């Protein structure tokens, strides 16, 4: 299957709940040893004010394009098997999920890092808005991730999210090999710094 066939983006209309189990099922595969997920849910308070619900709206066709573009960027940086990004629109009551991301990969580091990248980028560049509704008023929210990137959004080629991601692969082990190989008489012991002759 091509990469784009293993990328699912869904913007759900009002009153459609996000089915977490369904999406985890979408990304699960025998070759994927890890599934990382992020679920964003409506919190009951903001700066001491009681939140009743969040109301979401989107520029739907652009939001879908933008999320797909972010998913392509993630695939350039990490070895990912499958991705699902789902965002709900309309009112989302306290405790319910507004956004859900699931990433499967052979190894967990790719899945976890890509999942974090996807939610951070979504908050910075996908045209979706939420109004926070309190018991005594309402306000349009603003993501700090967007405000930091705002002036760059129109300038980058092929969308906003072609930003280079630096991925550092840490050394495999901090305390040397677990296996002592004693086959020949030189008795080489492999540790984190290389081979030490005894």
């Amino acid at each position, binding site marked *: 299957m091509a990469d784009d066939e293993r990328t699912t983006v869904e913007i759900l209309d009002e009153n459609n709940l996000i089915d977490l189990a369904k999406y985890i099922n979408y990304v699960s595969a025998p070759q994927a040893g890890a599934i990382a997920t992020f679920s964003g849910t409506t919190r009951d308070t903001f700066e001491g004010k009681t939140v009743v619900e969040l109301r979401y709206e989107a*520029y739907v066709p652009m939001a879908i394009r933008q999320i797909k573009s972010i998913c392509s960027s993630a695939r350039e940086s990490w070895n990912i098997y499958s991705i699902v990004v789902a965002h709900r629109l309309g009112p989302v009551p306290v405790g319910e999920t507004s956004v859900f991301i699931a990433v499967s990969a052979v190894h967990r580091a790719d899945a976890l890092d890509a999942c974090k990248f996807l939610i951070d980028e979504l908050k910075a560049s996908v045209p979706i808005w939420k109004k926070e509704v309190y018991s005594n008023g309402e306000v*349009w929210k603003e993501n700090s991730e967007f405000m930091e990137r705002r002036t760059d959004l129109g300038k980058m080629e092929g969308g906003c999210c072609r930003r280079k991601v630096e991925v550092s692969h840490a050394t495999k082990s901090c305390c040397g090999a677990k296996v002592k190989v004693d086959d020949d008489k030189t008795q080489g012991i492999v540790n984190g710094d290389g081979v030490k002759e005894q």
Partner: protein
Amino acid sequence: MDVTEVKAENADSQSSKKESVKIKVLFFARARDIVGLPSMPLEVSSGSTASDCLNKLVALFPGLEELRGCMVLAVNEEYTTESAIIKEEDELAIIPPISGG
């Protein structure tokens, strides 16, 4: 788009004596609340930039001024700069600070 394409389009619009372009403007979230409409048609002189369109919109709806320092523009579902030239039938979206997630 490269320079030769821009020139070719300008020549084309001059030869057909088109002096204005008609576009569609979309308003979302706070922008829609200020304007009171989700979308509207807009006619601007040909060769106008996204910034020129925004100036015209602010003149029509002075309340939009408060968004100028924090919004971005998109043309045909892609983020754009204020210096981008607007073409016939473009869809210009006013994107106030986003807050998805």
